[in-house]
């Protein structure tokens, strides 16, 4: 759609009228002022608080660096409060969640959309059903399940497996994959089969390379989800040395110096913000996609 043909509430004729033009200009300035104060303001303030001394921020929260910029606080956080360890834990947690999440979503989607065994319909219905059951129902029983996994009789509490495996059973991701795979033309599979490719070959060298866009969306959703998770890792990783950033931060609030705490918050938010600014198109499309699934 080009800007010439599309219209919204206001028509092109409206937009030529001087009154409308002035009003639109005012609205534009107003909206951006509000957005900058509301959305960029807190981030900027956090940076300022991280690079000022604690007393400066606590006595005059809007003063701009009265004693200069203290970059050293970031280094202190990294070494003194063990932030590097939490950071590495977070990376492991995200990497494992991504691996198992993609493994389950791709194989599941492939099975449901392409292989279609006789019980596929029942499985599909069972996966869909979990979307409609409020998550709260299984919080406690999932915890007990992870403490004593059926058949295996192992206790996963305190290991990253307790985060990776439950996170991999994500119904939205399986359904996104299933929908994408189902849209691949059947002739392609036919041709591959005639060439002698088995189901595994077809999956690895035909389906996966074709699904890059959806793999990107699912990876993004999984990584963001893993980084944001709080309650579950808090429950299953009781040992502070194993915890990711999100679980460790509330403890830093009470234990450390205020400026150091602000610096820890800033480091934790600037990484996803930087990734967002680089991949904004993908992020916003994934957000809009999830809306399409809901609507």
């Amino acid at each position, binding site marked *: 759609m080009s800007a010439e043909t599309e*219209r*919204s*509430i*206001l*028509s092109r*004729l409206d937009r030529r009228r001087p009154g409308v033009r002035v009003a*639109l200009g005012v*609205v*534009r300035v107003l*909206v951006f002022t509000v*957005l*900058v104060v*509301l*959305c*960029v303001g*807190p*981030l900027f303030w956090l940076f300022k608080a991280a690079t000022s001394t604690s007393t400066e921020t*606590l006595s*005059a*929260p809007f003063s701009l660096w009265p004693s200069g910029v203290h970059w050293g606080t970031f280094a202190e956080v990294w070494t003194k409060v063990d932030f590097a360890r939490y950071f590495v834990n977070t990376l492991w947690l995200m990497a494992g969640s991504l691996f198992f999440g993609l493994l*389950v979503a791709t*194989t*599941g989607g492939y*099975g449901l959309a392409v292989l279609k065994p006789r019980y596929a319909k029942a499985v599909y219905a069972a*996966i869909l059903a*979990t979307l*409609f*059951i*409020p998550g*709260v*129902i*299984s*919080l*406690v*029983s999932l*915890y*007990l*399940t992870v403490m004593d996994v*059926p058949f295996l009789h192992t206790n996963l509490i305190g290991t990253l497996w307790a985060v990776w495996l*439950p996170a*991999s*059973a994500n*119904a939205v991701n399986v359904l996104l994959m299933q929908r994408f795979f189902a849209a691949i033309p059947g002739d392609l599979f036919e041709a591959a089969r005639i060439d002698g490719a088995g189901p595994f070959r077809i999956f690895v060298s035909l389906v996966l390379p074709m699904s890059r866009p959806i793999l990107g969306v699912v990876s993004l959703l999984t990584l963001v989800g893993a980084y944001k998770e709080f309650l579950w890792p808090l*429950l299953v990783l009781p040992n502070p040395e194993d915890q990711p950033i*999100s679980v460790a*931060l*509330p403890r830093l*609030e009470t234990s450390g110096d205020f400026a150091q705490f*602000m610096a820890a*918050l800033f480091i934790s*938010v600037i990484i996803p*913000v930087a990734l*967002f600014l680089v991949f*904004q198109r993908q*992020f*916003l499309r994934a*957000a809009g996609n999830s*809306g399409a699934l*809901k*609507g």
Partner: protein
Amino acid sequence: MLMAFGLFSWWPILRSLPLSVQRTNFLTTEWVGLDNFSRVLQDPLLITASLNTLWFAVLALVIGFPVPILFAVVIAELRRTRGLASVLVYLPVIFPPVVAVLLWKAFFDPSPTGVLNTALGWFGLGPLAWLNDGDLAMPSIVLQATWASFGTATIIYLATLMGVQTELYDAAETDGAGAFRRFWHVTLPQMRGVLLVMLLLQLIGTFQVFTEPYIMTNGGPENHTVTILMLIYRYAFVSGDYGRATALSLLLAAALSALSWIYLRATKRWSTS
């Protein structure tokens, strides 16, 4: 795939049912019938937690639901700067929830030199006690929660607005409808499907609120911000009473399912009439 769902999705859901009528300490498990449920219903905190959760849901609805609609409609009119506005709107969503909550907790500093109190001071207002004030604590939490989530809804509504049939605008304009009436009679009806779903999802989400009050107030002051999920958390992971916690989970899930069912039926009739 089947193992992941079997062990960590379907099995826990099914297991909730027997768990709610058992009392277990990992060594022995005894069947206690409906005892867990009656102990949940006799807890005086249950009414407090239910009312608090309802209050949170209502406030989040009144404050949080119209804001993204307004932003989406206005941003859609801005055209050339629409992309930049979307990025700004989505920025708070990028904040990990824990970081956003802790940052706002710092903003809510009740001393006169707190961030929000200083800002209020410019207008000759305040200082307010924010999270330390029983009546103000929940609205403060809603303020933070709305800030953290309005970007998602705005982006979804913006995507919906791109698909609105524009011929109807032309028709409305020919009939002499002004911008507001075009929004009211053309835009809103076409967004209705998405709005109804988002409303239900928001309700289901707000009834399971935990992280925000847990980190900001841990239920205080004087239980003014204890929510139902926090009660479940306390039963299970503070007192080790898993049966009672599961019973309350099932009650909440049943209430949410009933709510969804009634809501979907009501809106179906409404949209066909």
